[in-house]
């Protein structure tokens, strides 16, 4: 049965006029953040800081691994760590995450094994982890298709009366895809416990936001579907955490979906294979470097006395150790068994797949011999 959809007024669905912000670029606290959101506790901010340091280091390490041929491709999220880490930290044990190819740092922040996270990007044919065990769907490449799966999982949770909510990640370009809109509409009609989290990093490969959408902000895309929407400074970890926490809590409490747009920036090229100088100016990148989310949180927590220089050192050292571990673990080429390619097409292989498997086995034996 469709959930109780109390028709809200359009006014009540609108995002804040300007992105919600708790901390200014220089690390100073904003006097009165809009929207009435609760500031996350200091302990959680310290944890977020550690994971952002680790995430940043993981990301640069992964990019480095592409240069050594250890990864087939890597879409960096450098500059988007506030979104990535907040997205992971708002998840409780019953919640699910539906990520894209861009969101490896979110998976690492969620506690997944970095080597498993990089399985697909290493060039393997499967996602590398057990989605049910970690409550994270396989990283998704066909744009916005995962947003519908997230809505479906949310409906599954709601209909089976299980606790928990779902966080769906999607890019600015992905909000132009039909599946994004269908997902918002379905979730609104069924009042499903799902939060749609758009990381607006200003580009879809080479295409800038202005060519992607004429909406006042992508957050306005929720209004027509009856989905309460919000926009947030995506480089302000405190703000992203506050807004996502509220949205997830509302979802878990039966209040239905929310759309959250985070304004952020993709500091690196689309992937290591892309040349961003063909479509954007160095000056623009330089300007965003001044809005770095990690430097901002660090300055903020240091100024508040929630973080010491020692803590900073320790966080960096831990990240360095993790990066060294990752390098070591990725030093060996994974040897996949070609015959396993037949094993998971169906629960039981068809007679034809059995024949083809035998054919390939014979070919491989002949090659060896």
């Amino acid at each position, binding site marked *: 049965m469709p959930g109780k959809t109390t028709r809200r007024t359009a006014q009540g669905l609108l995002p804040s006029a300007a992105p919600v912000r708790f901390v200014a670029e220089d690390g100073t606290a904003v006097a009165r953040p809009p929207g009435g959101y609760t500031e996350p506790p200091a302990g959680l901010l310290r944890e977020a800081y550690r994971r952002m340091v680790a995430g940043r280091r993981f990301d640069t390490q992964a990019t480095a691994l592409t240069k050594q041929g250890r990864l087939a491709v890597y879409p960096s999220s450098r500059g988007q760590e506030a979104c990535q880490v907040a997205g992971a930290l708002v998840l409780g044990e019953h919640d699910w995450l539906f990520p894209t190819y861009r969101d490896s740092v979110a998976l690492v922040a969620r506690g997944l094994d970095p080597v498993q996270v990089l399985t697909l990007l290493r060039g393997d044919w499967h996602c590398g982890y057990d989605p*049910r065990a970690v409550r994270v769907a396989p990283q998704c490449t066909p744009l916005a298709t995962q947003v519908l799966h997230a809505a479906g999982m949310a*409906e599954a949770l709601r209909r089976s009366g299980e606790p928990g909510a779902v966080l769906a990640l999607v890019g600015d370009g992905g909000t132009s895809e039909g599946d994004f809109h*269908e997902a918002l509409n379905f979730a609104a009609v069924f009042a499903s416990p799902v939060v749609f989290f758009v990381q607006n990093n200003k580009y879809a490969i080479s295409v800038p936001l202005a060519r992607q959408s004429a909406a006042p902000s992508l957050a306005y895309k929720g209004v027509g579907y009856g989905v309460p929407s919000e926009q947030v400074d995506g480089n302000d970890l405190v703000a992203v955490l506050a807004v996502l926490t509220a949205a997830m809590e509302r979802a878990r409490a039966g209040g239905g979906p929310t759309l959250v747009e985070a304004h952020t920036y993709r500091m690196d090229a689309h992937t290591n294979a892309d040349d961003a100088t063909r479509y954007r100016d160095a000056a623009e990148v330089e300007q965003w470097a001044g809005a770095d989310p990690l430097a901002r949180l660090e300055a903020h927590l240091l100024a508040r006395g929630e973080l010491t220089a020692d803590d900073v050192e320790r966080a960096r050292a831990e990240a360095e150790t993790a990066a060294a571990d990752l390098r070591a673990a990725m030093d060996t080429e994974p040897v996949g068994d070609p015959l396993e390619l037949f094993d*998971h097409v169906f629960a039981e292989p068809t007679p034809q797949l059995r024949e083809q498997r035998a054919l390939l086995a014979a070919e491989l034996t002949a090659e060896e011999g």
Partner: protein
Amino acid sequence: MAKVTMAQALNTALRDALSQDERVLVFGEDVGPLGGVFRITDGLTRDFGEERCFDTPLAESGIVGLAVGMAMGGFRPVVEMQFDAFAYPAFEQIASHVAKLRNRTRGLMSLPMVIRIPYAGGIGGVEHHSDSSEAYYAHTPGLKVVTPATAEDAYWLLRDAVADPDPVVFMEPKKLYWSKQEADLTRRGAAPFGRAAVRRPGRDATLVAYGPSVPVALEAAEVAAGEGVELEVVDLRTIVPFDDETVTASVRRTGRCLVLQEAQGFAGVGAEIAARVQERCFHSLAAPVLRVAGFDIPYPPPKLEHAHLPGVDRVLDAVDRLQFGDTPDLRHLGGRIEGAA
């Protein structure tokens, strides 16, 4: 045995599946109080409640994508696409996710879901209401593709599809919805899932058909018998998995093979069958494998569909081309053509 229509058999199958497994859900466009435009879900919302059978917003990709998420969450969705051509918006979800999730998770996550699609022509539908789209799905690894031709098969194959651990595209020949047949829906007489059925034995040639073409094949076999040619009619029942064994055994017995499909012929399921038969039965064949199919044109308007659809005459013309009168030159074959003169 009682007489039932295929529509009733499908409805009963959904009822029994809903009763026996609380994880089964039925949803789609107009499947709730209306019972679907073909009434296949008639009364399900009334009898099982909105929780188990419900209408969704109008978006096919949304319906299938939602089903993917719900299956990941432990349900067994059975979704209805309203018509063949209106399932195309869902194609990305079907090809990229429905078909691949098991593989993408190295077997850890399966997608037990059924996508029901009323398909093919013969009901005088206006444009976009009569497509034979089975080849698109059959060409996609990871999908099982089923199409029943009898009421009894409709029931049992749908029960099998719902119970299957993998996704099944269940294609319902809409022109057969109202055909009435004796069918036992309480005790299984139907062949297992994945096996073809010999609907009529015959010694002269094998006629392979599926779904909407099976009644045409049987009618043609009846007429041919009157003219002294005994056709063996094989009903595939499941296109994927494909039952090479039954088809091959039949063709090796008869030495001749026709493949009948309502769909346009080029790159169709019939082409695949013809290739498989000649690969496996070459030395048993006394004539080329012939395809009898629709033409390679967009599905014609209601008043002209009879010209497009392969009927009894087109089948019989093909039978005439099976070279029964020829004396094969056996020299280079060492004389080993079974059944040859």
